[in-house]
């Protein structure tokens, strides 16, 4: 079930360093929201603060509100582990568990959490997740082989299958295709178009065409100068951002004049 996320006045810190400042934005359910901007402006940092992955780094903290369907994710009584079960994440570099088989990787979210499930149900879940990630046909007859034997593109789709197997409401993707070849990239883009029927998707990308192709909404992050916090400069429908942005900086970035 896809969910809506409302973020208001979010400041994100690494120790004393404020990496991202004053983000207020709403992320729509059943859509793809793309985040673009130059390197180091805080896109990854922002993404990781949505599912409370930011705070696993020592000294990292967040001020402000992140509300998912009315519930404050940073509320005092909210367990970050529960938040991460509802908001899945796919990382820039494919990171399957090297000690596990392909099957076990997909089942990892269930197995590692010691959730009990009948073998046939688990088999079904693994198959459905791999199918949803467009990987089933390639790996169906080697489910028990190590995941590290897959190609980079396959590994990344395996990571997507692993993330959706726990049936989250939201899927965060941090440059999921930046380490992949064009064919695998296309496969992942097609996948996102299918997945947005079921999930709220937020994707960080450096690839303008990709943002234009897959997303409904686009946010542009920028950094006024080194050492300053990154800010969400503009957020609008993808169409508007790419055809007629309000801000000069957005236009410059999109047309390749800087960044």
């Amino acid at each position, binding site marked *: 079930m896809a969910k809506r996320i409302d973020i208001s006045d979010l400041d994100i810190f690494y120790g004393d360093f404020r990496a991202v400042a004053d983000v207020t934005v709403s992320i729509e359910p059943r859509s793809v929201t793309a985040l673009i901007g130059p390197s180091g402006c805080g896109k990854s940092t922002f993404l990781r603060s949505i599912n409370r992955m930011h705070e696993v780094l020592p000294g990292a903290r967040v001020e402000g509100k992140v509300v998912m369907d009315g519930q404050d994710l940073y509320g005092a009584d909210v367990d970050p582990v529960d938040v*991460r*079960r*509802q908001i899945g994440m796919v990382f820039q570099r494919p*990171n399957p*568990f090297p*000690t596990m088989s392909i099957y076990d990787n997909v089942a990892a*979210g269930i197995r*590692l959490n010691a959730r009990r499930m009948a073998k046939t149900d688990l088999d079904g879940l693994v198959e459905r997740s791999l199918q949803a990630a467009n990987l089933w046909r390639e790996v169906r007859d080697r489910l028990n082989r190590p995941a590290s034997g897959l190609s980079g593109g396959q590994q990344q789709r395996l990571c997507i299958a692993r993330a959706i197997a*726990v049936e989250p409401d939201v899927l965060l993707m941090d440059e999921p295709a930046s380490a992949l070849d064009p064919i695998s990239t296309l496969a992942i883009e097609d996948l996102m178009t299918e997945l947005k029927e079921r999930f709220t998707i937020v994707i960080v990308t450096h690839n303008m065409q990709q943002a234009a192709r897959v997303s409904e909404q686009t946010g542009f992050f920028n950094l006024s100068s080194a050492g300053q916090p990154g800010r969400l400069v503009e957020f609008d429908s993808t169409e508007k951002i790419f055809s007629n942005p309000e801000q000069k900086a957005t236009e410059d970035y999109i047309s390749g004049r800087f960044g």
Partner: protein
Amino acid sequence: MSQTTAGVPETTTPTQVPGGLRTGGRLPRWTSWAVFAGALAAVALLDLAVALNTALYVLFTAVLGTVALFGLSRAAEGRRTALDRLVTCVVASAFGLAMVPLVSLIYEVVSRGIARLDGEFFTFSLVGVVGEGGGAYHAIFGTLIITGLTALISVPIGLLTAIYLVEYGAGRLKRAITFLVDVMTGIPSIVAGLFAYALFSIFFGPGVRLGIAGSVALSVLMVPVVVRSAEEVLKLVPNELREAAYALGVPKWRTIVKVVLPTAVGGLGTGITLAVARVVGETAPLLVTVGITNATNLNPFDGRMATLPVYAFYQLTQPGVPPEFAIDRAWTAALLLIVLVMVLNVVARLISRLFAPTTGR
């Protein structure tokens, strides 16, 4: 004296490659062997004039051969190749020098210890043995039991400490523990023995001798080794895997148990095995905590036990009359210890190979 010019066409004069790269000529591949054979012959002649001992014989051959090869190569192949050959000679000589004590030690122990490596040595203790015969059955099992207990104490403590340092520790406490572990790594083994002795005499009075006291003493030596090696191995587990697990909503402790430890299991097993090998031959701490006995005592909670290193020590220092039988037994015990350490090292290698990450491509 290995070949550094393998596969290069054999010519003896400098040539001009069409592209303009100048290459030196190359001496035939057997040159270095020939030069050293010549050096050996020259030293043999010298030996006829003034009798040399083996050490001088080898030294003269090495120096003469190196100098001759350098000169020859300098003239025929140019400066860079000559220097290469010189360094090769120096490195090979250093290697040879390092091998001398190792090989002679193994030779000595095997040749002296083999005499009593018989069935009786493995099946009999020293009860009622005067002079010939007798064995180290009691010491072999004593060593296995005490070392096993040591591992049982040290592995959980060391592993948990390493997990704390890598996964949880931060700030002052972490730095303090790291410092203490460093200090413990350097503790002289006799100090560990005295510590365990003092600790157990609080409860059992002075003069206490117990197998478990020996295990405690050895643990003081083994724990820091386990911590250090486990820490290094855990640090090698990529952070991405922890994050992948967190992102699936897996709590930290489960991530450690189900993702981090399985990923590191090969390295951990290797480190633990090498740590066992490190303490299995310790003598001083066992001398003061466990003592020695001629009879078989397999209960580490009741009185003196025999262990291989202490057994060897007493057989050598108090051999009785006539001494040669006891001295033979001491060498055989030493041989067994070396074999034990070697087996442990092989096991460590097997573990690391068995659990090496597979790609299955």
